[in-house]
């Protein structure tokens, strides 16, 4: 990228950025390619003896996309999902997407249950295990929806955020498990007060039950947290590339954060 002082085509690029209806990663690549070509074509035209203003105007006329070309670029860079579903009516597509999401959430819940059954941890589970698993299924569905939205359906736009929901749900899963274990502990203590002679028989199953509740919650929260981190880093890197190509520092473009 050339130094900002020499970037004479920035106003044209910024204008183009606002009009180019393609996902930001594609837009960044197009703008970067175009900027280099504009500058180099201008240099070539100057070398042919054209005045600076004329060289710049001719470079822009040759390479800066007009409305028809922008539409064509949008078609070429449309995400595969959009191309495949272009002919489906909007309402039907939304219904299909929501059904797929509900199916994904159910699959996550069934998957979690199957894993716990395989590990024989559902014999006498904590009453908080099912809410934790359900919240985990919601977390899984949120992750899938976000990844689908960002990576398959349309890619991020400049204003895309929303990965915070994944972090919030991850924290909620962990919090629910901690609260559940605390409540279970109080109930277990009350039980032991009433029948202390059963302590030896009860304590090991109780420990296994609570350990499985906490383990499931920690695993779910970790998976959610890791996904949040990766998505956030990806979005940050895309936005920074976008700012760089448009000559904006993070400090000069707070509205885009």
């Amino acid at each position, binding site marked *: *990228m050339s130094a900002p002082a020499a970037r004479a085509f920035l106003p044209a690029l910024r204008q183009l950025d606002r009009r180019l209806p393609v996902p930001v990663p594609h837009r960044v*690549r197009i703008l970067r*390619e175009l900027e280099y070509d504009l500058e180099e074509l201008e240099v070539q035209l100057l070398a042919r003896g054209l005045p600076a203003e004329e060289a710049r105007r001719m470079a822009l006329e*040759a390479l*800066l996309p007009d409305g028809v*070309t922008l539409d064509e670029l949008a078609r*070429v860079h449309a995400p595969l999902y959009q191309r495949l579903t272009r002919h489906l009516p909007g309402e039907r597509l939304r219904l299909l997407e929501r059904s797929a999401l509900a199916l994904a959430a159910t699959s996550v819940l069934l998957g979690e249950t199957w894993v716990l059954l395989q590990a024989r941890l559902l014999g006498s589970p904590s009453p908080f295990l099912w809410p934790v698993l359900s919240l985990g299924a919601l977390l899984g569905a949120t992750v899938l929806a976000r990844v689908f939205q960002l990576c398959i359906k349309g890619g991020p736009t400049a204003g895309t955020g929303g990965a915070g929901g994944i972090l919030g749900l991850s924290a909620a899963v962990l919090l629910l498990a901690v609260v559940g274990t605390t409540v279970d502990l109080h109930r277990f203590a009350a039980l032991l007060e009433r029948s202390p002679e059963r302590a030896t028989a009860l304590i090991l199953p109780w420990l296994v039950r609570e350990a499985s509740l906490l383990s499931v919650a920690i695993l779910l929260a970790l998976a959610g947290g890791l996904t949040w981190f990766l998505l956030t880093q990806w979005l940050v890197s895309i936005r920074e590339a976008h700012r760089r190509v448009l000559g904006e520092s993070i400090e000069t473009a707070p509205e885009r954060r």
Partner: protein
Amino acid sequence: MTETDFDVQGFARDINELLVLSSLQAGPKHGYQIALDVETDSQGLFRFRHGTLYPILHRLEEGGLVRGSWSGEGGRRRKVYALTAVGRRHLSGETDRVQEIVSRLLALLRGPGEATA
């Protein structure tokens, strides 16, 4: 080619793609260089204006006919396009097709007397 599958608008688009592929036969180039070379080599007959070059290049890249690669030089990122083996074969086949179309068009325009003369 059958008599019914010829599409004039599609043919115009194909010509633009072939001009790009043809320009890349000389070696890898940047977008602006392709535009300049096409204009120079055709003595100004063909010109890419209003950025029409980019959808063509990106479509060819998606189709595997050209390969785009980024390189850095002094902190600047630039994209260079090179013709692939698939692109080379496509260009060869399409050149024959264009030749056939143009021959038939010329024969039609010149009329039966001219064609046999």
